[in-house]
Structures are given as structure tokens and as C-alpha cells.
């Protein structure tokens, strides 16, 4: 399984830079992808990002497939105006909680900050024999498949 580069390494810096460029180019789009709009806010022509950076693509797949327990999520606190970062409980009926007080006024920037937080939080390795636990033996909604 792909390793998540550690913060402070050139590999991580490169991922952060690429992700940020894509994020900034997506401002104004009613949607989001880690791809770079040729014209900011316009998806007519997109390139780069996950289409051209295999490491970025793999790292994002691993992040996105993580269990809902403790997973970071965006919470809109004012319609089309304010957003905050939350964390899922992984327990049904227990709502997400805010992770900090930071309020975003752009719904794309928060995507980038969550990417950086995940680089910091997620283990470099996962799903190796060393991480094996009883949960591997059963299907669950917490696995990255529907």
C-alpha cells in the first residue's frame, strides 16, 4: 500500500504544493477536484493534479478510503458562506464534532487544509500485516466500499 509521506519531507512538500495549486484554481466552481483549471474557476480545461501525479492520486485514495471513525469532514455552518472542519464519530447517531474554531469563508480552501491535516495525522503505513486486527475479517460500512 502506498505510504503517506511524512510532513517536512520534499515529497510531502510537493504534494502540498500541487494540491494547493489545484485547490486555488477550483475556487468558484460548484464542485471540487484535485485538478488544475486552466482558467481559475472554469472547468472547461483541467489538467495536472491526480491525472498527472501518481503519488498524489494514490495518497488521496488512501485518505479518502479511511474509516469514518475519526475521519475529517466539512461542515457548512452558514449556507454558501461559512464552513468548518469536523470529525466523524464512526458511531451511528453520534454527530460529528468541530475540530477547531477556524471558520472558512471559501469552501475550497477547507479541502486543502484537511489534506494537510491528514498528511499530519494519518500513519505512514496502513493495512500491512503489522496493522492487522480482528476488524479485517468482516465486511463493514466502514470499509471503503459500498
Amino acid at each position: 500500500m502506498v505510504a503517506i509521506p511524512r510532513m517536512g519531507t520534499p515529497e510531502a512538500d510537493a504534494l502540498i504544493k500541487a494540491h494547493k495549486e489545484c485547490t486555488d484554481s477550483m475556487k468558484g466552481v460548484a464542485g471540487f477536484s484535485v485538478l488544475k483549471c486552466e482558467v481559475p474557476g472554469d472547468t472547461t480545461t483541467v489538467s495536472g493534479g491526480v491525472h498527472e501525479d501518481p503519488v498524489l492520486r494514490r495518497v488521496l485514495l488512501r485518505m479518502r478510503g479511511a474509516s469514518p471513525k475519526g475521519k475529517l469532514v466539512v461542515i457548512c455552518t452558514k449556507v454558501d458562506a461559512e464552513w468548518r472542519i469536523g470529525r466523524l464519530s464512526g458511531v451511528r447517531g453520534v454527530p460529528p464534532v468541530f475540530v477547531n474554531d477556524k471558520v472558512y469563508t471559501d469552501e475550497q480552501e477547507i479541502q486543502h487544509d484537511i489534506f494537510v491535516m491528514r498528511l499530519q495525522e494519518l500513519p505512514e503505513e496502513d493495512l500491512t500485516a503489522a496493522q492487522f486486527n480482528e476488524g479485517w475479517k468482516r465486511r463493514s460500512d466502514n470499509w471503503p466500499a459500498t
Partner: protein
Amino acid sequence: MCAMRLTGYADKFGVHPGDKIKFFVNCDGPSEYTAEVVQMINGDTNPRGPGFIEKSIKADVNRTYKGRKQVIHSGSYGFVQDCKQLRVESFTLQCWIWPTTPKTHPQYWKHGSQGLVSKWSDNKGYGLFINEDGALELRINEHRISTGQTIRDHAWHFVAATFDAATGDVVLYHEPQIVYALDPVIEPVKKKIKAKIQHSNIPAAIAAYVEKLDNGALARSSKPAGVVLGGKYNGKIDSPRICNRALNRTEIELMKLGAQPGLTERRNSGPTDALSEAIVAAWDFSDGISTRTAKDAGPYRLDAEIVNCPTRALTGYNWSGQNFDWKHAPKEYGAIHFHDDDVDDARWDADIEWTVPAKTKSRFYALKLTTAQGDEDYIPFWVVPKIGEEQSKIAVMVPTISYMAYANEHLACNAGGAELFVYRVPIMQQQNMFVSEHREYGGSIYDTHTDGSGICLSSRLRPILSMRPKYDHFLAQAPWQYPADLHLIYWLETMGYEYDVITDEDVTYEGLARLENYNVIITGSHPEHNTGTQLDALHNYTQRGGRLMYMGADAWYWVHTFHPAYDDQGRGVMTEMRRCESGIRTWRADPGEYYHQSNGELGGMWRFRGRYLHSVAGVGMSSEGFDISSYFTRTKDSLDPRVSWAFKGIDYDEKLGNFGLVGGGAAGLELDIVDTMLGSPPHTLAVATSAGRHTEAYLLVTEDFGFNQQGLDGTVHPRVRGDIAFHETPNGGGCFSFSSIAFCGSLPWNNCKNNISTLVKNVLDRFSKDGPLPAAPAGSVKYRGRADYEYASLDN
């Protein structure tokens, strides 16, 4: 965070002018709220669009109301009112169980014991339970006798308990149907207690127990009113029995047979002469699967009323795997799967009743609720003209069944895979936050229940918080379903069209009569969920010269049936859908569980019932992706004189819809294509396509391949595209399909001055004219193949 203190629903989706509609409101906190009828024009708050638009409507119900809290008592169960026969001195309780959450997380929303068969409350009475530790437990008054052994989840067990009042002997049996090599032997637990069962005026319950009797206002929405049930069980129960004496193990085995009304030599209810005298109740859940009743085959006919619509038509402990349709082997379908988050009806008290004035225009409306403290909610409804009293030549067919299917979905919060298919971090709105905590509002047909089993039933008699304006769906990061369909409404209003609105529900019940007085029917952006009679009506309509404008994608996909047990509460109250062998499935039905409980129809995709999606409007779903949208390009088909009129004012090389309020383009989210092998008429013209420009987030639908492999995404696969298509139907009819859920999001762009708007206007103007469409040029009438279309495959 639960910001929503105002929630509500109406007793119907569509209301005729002159008829009444009731509104049910929960106002949790504020002392009063204001209600106002508004016409909905645009529900999208995106600053790059026209912004939120509503129009105030003068109505005699527009005023301030006293607020009151109303709650939903979710969780399914059965109950039988108290009666002499249930007030036993000694007893045997027995049933088969397949528990799904015998043990729950301490933070789980309904953590605690679960009732199986009980007539117990407040340390009085008797009942069989699964206790907080996940073990079988018998309760007799304050006494609790447990096996101490956690029951295996998702496995059948036979459980029973006997109590002999004369001796005080108690025996508790927990017998797994499957015993694995290293399972410990679970011996019957035998105890002696000194007890006389204290009876009280409470119902007997299946899959729950009576938590309390309550005369308060909040208990009125429980059923029976004033009786609050707790300990809602998650899992299947099959063949529950109550006998009025302590049976020995052999008798218990015989009693598994239950009452035997089919025996011709019978002189009693069976299963033996002696045991027939012991039966209090012997429920047979296989009888009346399409009802709200659990039939008692025993002598007292203690039928249980089933509340909150658990899932039936499910395999029982004795399913043999030989029959897959419950109608053919009903005795193998004696299980009901109860869930603690099932909800069939919020059962709130009505707060507002509005008689819609006779001259009211057919439009999208909502009851807008606000408080002085800033709370807000909208309860959408539609004014639908009576048949014969149509107000215009254009009708918008509102996909209400699809709204029900998506009602209160929890995917952003619960599904591990959600972020992989939206390809970004999901964004939760206040509605998502509310339902993530208030599971009693029920989930969508996309969700799994709190126990992980698929949700296949959805009621409209509850607040549907995903069917709201100002709501961006996590799938789209933009409006989806109801608010997305308002993009179309905004466009119709801005362009000055007169139009009626009708609903899926209306077409389901009224058939062709609901459609045939219109020149053109316009769909919503994502009419994915449909009944068979609705599809029949659409086919018959286009056959007779009707015109259909299919404004989105992924339509005509899933088989839906309305549950007849709720007909007494109105039309289309409860819809059912099962995710069977193929299709885009967020959960999958188990083997033998493909047939609907509501009417026995085979569920799943219409495609696998032989009704290809592409046969309805000429295109069918081929791919989906949720990150960003793209645009369409005209093909040479668009130059054909059969259809070139649609592109008047649009240059051949123009990028069609490289703008929009959903994903940034007209081609996005879910996409349909022409496929003459899957039902597109062979003369279909694919006039524009988005081929070759979707991201890797877009993937081919699973029903289109049989082997998972690389190369299925939008950057490489030729079927990951949308095709705008046109074909003529007999008698001057026609279908124009725009083949993208994001399509309508481009209509409002630049105040509706754009090429998508031009294209749709050209089509609508032509389709809405009286009389048949102009005949196709004579040269276009020729016999065409399906696989060998234009003989291209032979040439290659």
C-alpha cells in the same frame, strides 16, 4: 450542533386547487413561529447564479403560530393490546432470532436491552430480551435470568424460556442454529425463583417492550398513543409463540410448528391436541406480508399491529435456497427484520390546514416556517391541477419518488466509501448534521439502517430535510434533486413559460390520463426511481404523439412500488425499492430477498426486469462521477434536418454548457448515453456528446461490465460520456434527452442567456406546439438494425 429547531412535513405532496393540505410542525424551543405560503422559484444560493428566489403568496394561513415540540418514535415493533389470555401465570416464550446488533457501542443512540417478546414494563410482567451485554435474558417482574453468553450477530438462534408458577422453575434456552467447532456448548439455564407475575394494562410487544405509559403531548405520536415503546430490537424474528404453561423441551420443539390450520384431521389449533390448549399466540409472519398485521394463527386471533414498517418478505430460519420469491414459498419467509430506526409516519398533530384556493396556479410551493430567532424550514408541496382542468400545455413531472428515495440520507456521515465516489471531502449541511444525531427521522434508500442492513422503504410522512431549498447535497457540492429541479423552474419562470406541475405519484396512480392533455412533459434532473405504471404511462404517452423532454440522467433505473398497507393514509405514502443483483448499489439485498413486500414484484433495476432504461427516452445511464462537470460538443447527427432546428442560434463548434451551477458544466454527476442494444430506438440521433473530457472520478456503471478491471474511468473509457439525443415517436411525438444530472444547473447561468438555454428553448417551443411534430424528411424513413446500426460493425 443541531441548529434545526423547526422541522415539518405535509400530509401530501400534490394538492389540487380547492383541496386541503395539512402541515405538521415541530418547533423545538421557540415559543412561536410564523408560517407563510411561498412559491418556489430558485433554491440555489450559489453567488454565481441568480440567488435564492421565492414569491410570497397571499394565504389565510399566513400568520404566527404557537410553537410546540413534536417527536418521532422510530423503531419498528408489533403490539397486541392487553387481554386476559396474555395475563398468564406460567408461560413458555419462544421464537427464532437473527439479531444484528445484540451488543452496541456505549455511545450508540439506543444502547441498552432489546425486547424480543414481552409483556413487561417497570419490573412488572414477563418477557424475553437481549440484555445490554448482548445475552439472552428472561424477565419476570424484577427478576432477570440470563445465559450470560453474548449472542452471535447475523446468525439464527432458537431461543425459549419457560416459567412454572407452581414450582418457580425457570428454564432459558439459547440454541444456535449453526454451531462452529470452537463454540462453547450453551446449556439451558435453570433457576428457581419465587414470583407471581404482576400484570398491568400494557400491550404485549414484539421486538420492543413498553417503556412507559405517558399522557404527555410527546407520547401522542407513539403508537398506541400514550404508550412509549423502548428496547427496539435490531434483527429478524421468526415464529414467536406464547404458551400458558411451562412446556418441556420436546413440547417446545413441537410448538415450533405453531398452530396447524392446514391439517384436515384437525379438531383444534394444533400442533397437538394437548399443545393446542396451551397456545396463547402463535404468530405467523409469512401470512400478510403486504400488510401492517402480524397474523396470529392461534385460537385467540391475537393479531399484532406492526408499527413503523419493518422489512418483511425476508428469508426465515428455514429458508432452503430453492425458492427466491416469497410468494412461492411463503413458509420460508416467516421472518420480519425490525430496525430501531424504521419510521412509517411521524404521526404528529397537524398545526396548519390550508384550503388551496380554486384559482391557484399549478406551481412549486412551500410552507415557509420562520422564528424571530432566525430558525427556518420549508415544507415543499405542489399544486397539481385536476385531470381535465389543466392550466397549460407544458407539464413538469416532479420526481417525488426519487425525492423519497433520497430522503434524509446519511452517506456523508456513515459510508466509508462516500469520499471515494465524490472525490473530495464531503460537505455536510445543517440538515445532514441534524439527521446524523436524529436517527429517528429515518434514513434514505441509499443508507443502511443503524444495524447495517439496507434501507428499502421510505415514507413521505416525516420531515424530509434533503428535500429543501438552500440545500447543497454532498454528492454534488451543489443542489441535487429538489433544489436542482428548481434550476429548471427558475428557467421556465424567467423565460416566461406557462407550465403545470404533476408528480410521479400522480402519474403512477392516474396513468396516461395524467399526461395526455399536455403537449410536452418535462422531467426533473434525476428521476431515477419509478413505478411500473409510471413507465407504462410515459410509453403510452409518447406512442400517442406526446413529447418528452428528459432533463437529466440516471432515470427509469430502479423498480419502486408503493406499499398498499398505507393506502388509507393517502397515495404513495411508503415506497419500496430493493437493491438486487446489479446497478449502482450502496447496499445489496441478501439472497432470496429481491421481491418486494409491498406487492410481491421483483425489485432491482428495471433493466433486469427487461425494461431497459434507454427505451423510455432514448438514453440510459452509463457513468457517474461527482467531482466536477464538463461540457457537450455537437456531433454530425446534430446537422441532420430531423433535428437541426434544435440548434438554431448555436454554432457547430460552440462548447455547449462549459459553465454552470452544478460542477461548473452541463455534463456531469451522472451521465446517459445512447445504446441501441439497450433500448434506444435505432433511429435515435446522438446530437451532442461529452465524450473524452471527464475526470477519473467518473466511472462506468457496474451493470455495464462483468469483470472489474482498470480502464473504466472518464479519462479512458469510451462509454463514460453523456449523449444529448433526439428521436421521433409515432404520431408526431418525440423525446429529447439532455443526459446529464448537472444539465439543468447550466440553465440559469448568465440570467438564462447561454447556449444551453437556447437549445432547451428551441426544443420546448417546438415540443409544446399543438399538433404533431413536423414529419421527418422522407429519406430518413428506413429500416435500421440494432447491433449492426448503419452496418458499421460489418464495415469494421
